[in-house]
């Protein structure tokens, strides 16, 4: 059964091979997702399905959706991929997720751009999560760009997370490749006994530019956060990464930024710690370096060519 064959909200639109490839890349979708989903293409709804516990409704005042997860919902998922396949399109979407108390769900987002023309293709996605008391989410957002056109592929995600008391979130933000420009903003507020893990993986190449700003406010006692960022900059690409932890209570936080720099690329890595409470324990580490020659040689002694060794090291580093 094809994705396009079902649609419980409006007329189905046909998925073409490019759409299918993008969906597979950004959301690992090979067919109909399990559970609730909302697929958006070129600014319009392509297909949607709510479930008994996860309701998806269109916003009335601006483009986007509200995803409401009932309290206590467990082991369910919601997929909300976005496809942009038209040159000259600027897609802007506001999505809000209200995760009910005690729920535990997987949310898979992501955007794939296929730019066939000379104009810019751009998607700005603003995602706001309210994770209620004791709830847990795993949120995976992958970005990918391709297309034979000369127009830039631009993705500007903004992610706002509020963790209430005892809530937790694992947030995985990935830029696979092919995005010419990205301005990524992630803001989080962690309540008492809340736990947040943000893992960012980013690859830039060619003349691409990536700017990522992550700010986490540890607002409640026993809140904790880890920000783990890994990036690879190839060719002439440029990256700026800023991660700021603000400890406002008895809390723990750690930032680790690790980058591989290649060719003529440039990377700035700027972890920041702000302790506004005497019992806020905040640490950071940052490293930027080339692929170690010893690693390449080791893999070549196992029969890989130099290029295969580089690809293997980078794939592992960004996995």
């Amino acid at each position, binding site marked *: 059964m094809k994705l396009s064959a079902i649609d419980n909200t409006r007329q189905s639109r046909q998925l073409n091979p490019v759409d299918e490839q993008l969906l597979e890349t950004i959301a690992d979708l090979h067919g109909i997702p399990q559970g609730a989903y909302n697929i958006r293409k070129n600014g319009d709804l392509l297909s949607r399905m709510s479930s008994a516990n996860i309701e998806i409704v269109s916003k009335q005042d601006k483009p986007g959706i509200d995803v409401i997860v009932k309290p206590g919902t467990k082991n369910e998922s919601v997929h909300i991929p976005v496809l942009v396949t038209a040159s000259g399109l600027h897609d802007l979407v506001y999505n809000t997720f209200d995760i009910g108390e005690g729920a535990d769900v997987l949310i898979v987002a992501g955007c794939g751009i296929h730019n066939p023309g000379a104009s810019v293709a751009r998607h700005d996605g603003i995602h706001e999560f309210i994770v209620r008391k004791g709830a847990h989410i795993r949120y995976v957002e992958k970005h990918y760009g391709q297309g034979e056109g000369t127009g830039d592929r631009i993705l500007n995600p903004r992610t706002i997370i509020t963790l209430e008391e005892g809530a937790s979130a694992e947030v995985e933000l990935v830029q696979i490749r092919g995005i010419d420009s990205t301005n990524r903003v992630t803001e989080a507020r962690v309540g008492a006994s809340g736990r947040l893990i943000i893992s960012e993986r980013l690859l830039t190449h060619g003349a691409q530019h990536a700017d990522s700003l992550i700010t986490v406010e540890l607002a409640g006692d026993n809140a904790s956060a880890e920000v783990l960022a*890994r990036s690879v900059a190839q060719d002439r690409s440029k990256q700026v990464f800023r991660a700021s932890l603000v400890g406002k209570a008895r809390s723990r936080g750690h930032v680790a930024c*690790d980058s591989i720099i290649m060719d003529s690329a440039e990377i700035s890595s700027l972890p920041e710690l702000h302790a506004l409470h005497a019992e806020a324990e905040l640490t950071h580490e940052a490293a930027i370096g080339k692929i*170690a020659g*010893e*690693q390449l*040689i*080791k*893999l*070549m*002694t*196992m*029969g*890989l*060519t*130099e290029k295969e060794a580089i690809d*293997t*090291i980078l*794939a*592992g*580093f*960004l*996995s």
Partner: protein
Amino acid sequence: MLKLENVTVAASNGDGEELEILNKINLSFETGKMYAITGPNGGGKSSLAKVIMGIYQPAEGRLYLDGKDITSTSITERALMGIGYAFQNPPRFKGLKVKDLLSIAASNRDHGNIERLLRVVGLCPRDYIDREADARLSGGEFKRLEIAMLLARNPRFVIYDEPEAGVDLWTFEQLLGVIAGRHKANASSTTVVITHNERFLRAADEIVLMAEGEVKERGSADAIWPMIEDDIACRWRTTCGGELDEAECYR
């Protein structure tokens, strides 16, 4: 058979001056034999391994594998010819898991064998196969993984660079058994162990004693061991200014 003819390797000392780290090495390693290479630190043992593996290129001389000149072949080509090298200090890999490295070593075949090899080197597959091969593994654990990777490749000419370094006594016994056992079970393979350990030296068919980038002696353990003891005593005296005896050195 692997043969080195007049192999010289030079390296820069950082001031633009070229120093010979291997000097006119003539050595042959016969198929089916186990060799131990020993000698003082900085004597050229690991450099010899690296020139055989293709990591270092000789400034002079030739290398032959079964009569074929392999001097100008790459590391990858030598690996595919069946030469394998377990590093003394293997590098760590962020993001790559134990199973990833073993799969690469085994050329992505026979995953059941990967688990068996982990057990052989004393690493429980359940505990290790999904772990990242990064700094969170201890030196001894990584050393065992390095040897498992080499076993997964199953090369016909295998070099272990100080397999005893950084491993505990119990693991050492196990690794000694694995290395010697594999050698006995593979009549068509050649094993070279760079070592400072007497048990490895005595397990070898032949010992090569290297110092100052040269082969000083070679022969059976019985023939070479007294020379090693004499040389150690001599070095103690030299280190202490040439006038003190050993007892005075310890005082």
